[in-house]
């Protein structure tokens, strides 16, 4: 069922509906996402994916109560779970209700960064550091040079010695190239990103939903 038009504006759930085409309200808490998630094991996720969806459902219900909604948003956006999601999509492809759970995790990560609510835990920090390093690399040079990525990432997280032995072995196997490849121009991509973001803002105006008709 298409709920995307009917969720209260400003909620994380409405963003989820817009990005994934499904509403958190579709979740009936069967727990299949939690049951099949390779990361949802002891000591990893602080909230199971099922619980994340439950928080979003509560957020919708309490949208008219700003303090309550904000607290629920803090819990969902501040969870480690999105940062521990491996993006394997097992949840999304198995969900009996067709909820794109992995897509929900994407939205939560993006939104937690935007609102500055992301969990400051070591797990979340290290995952985010990698993403940031990676993105900077891509947008600067167009392609990823693994050695540069690893070096920058390690500098960022100050975790210099993990895997120190693997490097030389990889080098000997010819698997690490010391010199980065020539740079590739990403101006066009950045321009497209800007135009796309501008367009989305227009869409997210009061009148129209993104999905359109038909």
């Amino acid at each position, binding site marked *: *069922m298409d709920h995307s038009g009917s969720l209260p504006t400003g909620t994380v759930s409405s963003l989820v509906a817009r990005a994934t085409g499904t509403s958190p309200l579709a979740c*009936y*808490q*069967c*727990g*299949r*996402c*939690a*049951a*099949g*998630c390779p990361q*949802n*094991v*002891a000591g990893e996720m602080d*909230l*199971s*994916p*099922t*619980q994340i969806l439950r928080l979003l459902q509560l957020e919708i219900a309490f949208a008219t109560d700003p303090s309550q909604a904000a607290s629920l948003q803090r819990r969902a956006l501040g969870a480690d779970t999105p940062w521990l999601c491996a993006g394997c999509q*097992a949840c999304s492809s*198995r*969900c*009996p*209700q*067709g909820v794109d759970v992995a897509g929900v995790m994407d939205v939560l990560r993006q939104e937690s960064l935007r609102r500055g609510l992301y969990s400051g835990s070591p797990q979340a920090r290290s995952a985010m550091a990698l993403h940031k390093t990676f993105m900077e690399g891509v947008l600067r040079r167009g392609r990823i040079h693994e050695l540069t990525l690893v070096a920058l990432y390690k500098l960022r997280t100050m975790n210099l010695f993990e895997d120190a032995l693997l490097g030389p072995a990889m080098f000997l196997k010819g698997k690490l190239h010391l010199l980065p490849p020539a740079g590739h121009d990403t101006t066009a991509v950045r321009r497209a990103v800007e135009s796309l973001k501008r367009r989305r803002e227009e869409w997210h105006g009061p009148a129209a939903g993104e999905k359109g008709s038909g």
Partner: protein
Amino acid sequence: MARIGVFVCHCGENIARTVDCAGVAAASLEMPGVATAVDYRYLCSDPGQALIREAIVKVGLAGVVIASCSPRMHEKTFRRAAEAAGLNPYLCEIANLREQCSWVHTDRDQATRKAIEIVRAHVARARYNAPLVPVRVPLTRRALVVGGGIAGIQAALDIAEGGVEVVLVERSPSLGGHMAQLSETFPTLDCSQCILTPRMVEAGTHGRIRLEAYSEVEKVEGYVGNFQVSIRRKARYVDPNRCTGCGACWQQCPMKKLKSVFDEGLGKRTAIGVPFPQAVPNKPVIDRENCIQFKTKKCGRCQKACPVGAIDFDQQDDLVTEQVGAIVAATGFQVLGKEAFPLYADGDHPDVITGLQFERLASASGPTGGEIRRPSDGEIPRTVVFIQCAGSREPALGRGYCSKICCMYTAKHAMLYKHKYHPGRPIVLCMDVRTGGKGYDEFWRRATEQDGVLYIRSRSARVYPSGGRLVVQAADTLLGGERMELEADLVVLATAMVPQPDARALARKLGIGYDSDGWYSEVHPKLRPVECASAGIFLAGACQGPKDIPETVAQASAAASKVLGLFAARELLREPLVSRVHRAPPPVHSICGGCFACEQVCPYRAIEREEIRDRKGNLIKVVARVNAGLCQGCGTCVAACRAKAIDLEGFTDEQIVAALGALAESNVEPAGAR
């Protein structure tokens, strides 16, 4: 000029809140042909109807337009009211101001303007309403019941007991259906076969029931009261008149390792035989696909063994035609096989079985004599995991409905397993436990509280084999949903109930509707739950949707009483909203030119040919004629007629063109000026 009365209903606040009903009535008075217009709080109430009746008599109305709720709601009510005042009921017209105006708009002014236009269109239409009289149809007092499961058996017996002859068609060799396969029935745990087989025998031997087993409905023609049904009697290769059911033939059959359909593939059978020992009729059938005689012509052992010479390898299918006046569809359901679940051990692991297979394992007449042994190695399983909602409530797979019976039978399975093997550990993975019904909730509470069945609120993500056992991935959602991996020796899937694979094909033969899942549709889910939209056809049992045995039996009896009720009348009266071909006095006779485009598109074969001759008997032309008994009033012929020589009562071209013209009239007015 027509004298039309317009009656605007407030429906309490339902219409009046958004539509200015008095304003609509006032505007109606301006419309051509309107003699009186009033608004009233509740027109469907007794005083409301009295108001209409009085106006008809006092003003001498030649037609009425009731502006109220949807015609689907109260058309009959108001037509009756009109009739009571001496007006032909078909001169009463309903304008829908509630469902399609006041309830869907918020701006009072816009809604009022729209209401006026709706009324205007209906007034225009009403000017062309013609008085119609119901079509009278003769009646054959004989019934057909399709399907010989518990629903069909019950319906056939009830109709027969009511004094009406029944033809009971069952496509498998024996009556019984799925109920015959069950071990015990919830919530009483009484033996299914023990309560069913006496009813089977009764149906098989009843003087007014003609049992056509191993037969299928091939074609249905005709209409309520007058169906002609072709039934294909499939070749059994055994003469049922000679056969005594002694069993000598199947004892001699060399093909002993075929998978038993009745045992859901868990037991064995021979190429000739009855599906199960209590079969009715107790006459064997040869499975042509697997019979050596049919494959190589080198066997014939059954033929030699038969003491009465009943085996006939040359038997052919036989078509018979039956005349009946009513039909009960009781064709039942199927359950999904485990191959539909690649999530669960790729859908082909021997120790992942369906609930129906578990019934056969638990049944004393089953392949293990009632002991729960797993199919792979015959061991008794120490842990059995039952997975509920397998394929039900899964919109992502195109099946959103609840199969309704699984919660109860899974509780029963877990209990039976525990009763039969005390050290065993039954674990049920469920999302909700739905146990509405007399004694039902008490039953599942007994399973958890007394029989030690563990219920985990979870939907399994995957089952995979490891170390000779099966690992079931789950998450206890009541504990926050952390992943758990349960080891099991046997996994039982409560697989979804689904319509018969050929349900849609039969529906098309019968001309009845079905929903997007393929379940047969009733006319009204609450008030007419056993009738099909096609007159004279009724529903019983799970062909309409998931049902348990008590509900099935109740509905079958309801269908039977509907059939008996239909047959209580001397002849049938049908709605006269049918097509008719233009006729005129000579020299024109009819503007029908005889192209018969109508005949080519009519789904009911209702178009006949009529020869028009002059006084000397010379043929002038051949024109179309509508058989009003067959016509269902779809109007497809009217659209196909290029000359517009055919028209549909109640929806005539004149009425529709008039309504379109009325919409245009209001177009002339400047918007908002009222």
